């Protein structure tokens, strides 16, 4: 019996027959006025032909929620973030606004160029860690613990000031290129008992359903995102950990070097997409 012949023929037949559920081709315009870039040309060296926002892969209702900032439940978090921005905390008796004044001006465009190189620590820094740095060094307040206190709403508030701006990560600064390489390695590393990498789902199979979930490219331009399932803002490192956990693997700590490298790399993979914070996802 020649098993391999049968195997190959069978495989060919079933694979061509299987359907591919393409992401929808529509435009995301927030409140009928702000046109978002949800499809962008891939940066050089990117494995996919184009970069697509996770928005395209969600249902019509979920997409509509994001297009209307009054309906978007994530905007509640953004409003909380605005309150925190103006709240005095810590021994120095200052709020963020004491030094940075109006976030709409001072933070505009900033969320689109993070993570970026941080000379003082010799590592990349993201918005969450920059908030903590200011709380500790400039306010005499305690650093927020991961996902606690005002970390998610304040991050969402700052990123929201870049709504519509194209994501751009600068790999020329400091050692960013080395962190990108490390992130890339992690992206393709197969983990856990299920033996899957990020690429197994988000590169090889984006556009297909895995049970009830329509797999996207796993882009990070909408974080923190509002997840309908959890009814809450979800941070990027929480999402990373959840995806790794689902392969039945141990997962790294939030803000660990591994997850910071993954943030640098995945941000690059979605370069050119508009910042959507707070994006709405299922």
């Amino acid at each position: 019996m020649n098993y391999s012949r049968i195997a190959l023929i069978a495989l060919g037949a079933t694979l061509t027959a299987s359907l591919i559920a393409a992401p929808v081709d529509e435009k995301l315009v927030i409140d009928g006025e702000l046109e978002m870039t949800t499809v962008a040309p891939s940066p050089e060296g990117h494995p996919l032909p184009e970069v697509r926002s996770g928005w395209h892969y969600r249902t019509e209702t979920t997409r509509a929620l994001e297009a209307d900032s009054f309906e978007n439940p994530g905007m509640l978090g953004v409003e909380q973030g605005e309150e925190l921005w103006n709240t005095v905390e810590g021994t120095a008796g200052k709020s963020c606004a004491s030094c940075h004044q109006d976030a709409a001006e001072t933070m505009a465009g900033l969320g689109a160029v993070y993570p970026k190189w941080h000379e003082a620590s010799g590592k990349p820094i993201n918005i969450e860690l920059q908030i903590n740095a200011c709380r500790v060094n400039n306010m005499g307040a305690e650093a927020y613990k991961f996902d606690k206190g005002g970390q998610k709403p304040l991050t969402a508030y700052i990123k929201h000031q870049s709504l519509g701006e194209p994501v751009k990560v600068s790999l020329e600064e400091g050692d960013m290129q080395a962190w990108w390489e490390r992130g890339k390695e992690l992206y393709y590393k197969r983990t856990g008992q299920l033996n899957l990498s990020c690429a197994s789902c988000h590169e090889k199979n984006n556009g297909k359903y895995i049970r009830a979930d329509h797999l996207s490219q796993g882009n990070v331009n909408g974080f923190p995102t509002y997840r309908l399932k959890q009814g809450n803002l979800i941070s990027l490192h929480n999402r990373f950990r959840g995806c790794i956990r689902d392969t039945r693997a141990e997962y790294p700590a939030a803000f660990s070097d591994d997850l910071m490298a993954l943030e640098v790399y995945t941000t690059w993979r979605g370069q050119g997409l508009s910042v959507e914070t707070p994006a709405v996802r299922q």
Partner: protein
Amino acid sequence: MMRKIVSTAIVALGMTGLVVAADVTAPEDVKVENLAISASLTGAPGNAEEGKNVFSNRKLGNCLACHANSDMADQLFHGEVGPSLDGAGTRWQPEVLRTIVVNAKEVFSDETVMPGFYSLDVGEDVRKDLIGKTILTAQQVEDLVAYLSTLK
């Protein structure tokens, strides 16, 4: 008296453990030849009815996550990462179905995203409590093979 009961229990446990181990092929002893694993991993045929449950149960095979299967039309949401398994029992010999379930890499390629369900050839950083463990037991694999063979 108490002590005696306990030690008898341990002896009994040890014995049944031995009996099972003698019949079941351990994951590291499974031999694939010409894409096939010729003998049952338990030494006995599987139960197709049980296999159907292993197939759909999210905590066991969770095969529906990646495969459509018309035999389970009553279940919502069939995945499409892998091909539909309609007719899998016609396309594949049971001996090859066994290999696909045990370690799909042996039949397709190292690149396949289908997990190895009775294999220790797994990814890195495996959750601590799962180290050295397979996703399914030998019995569950045999039940699945019996079930898949009914998909004509």
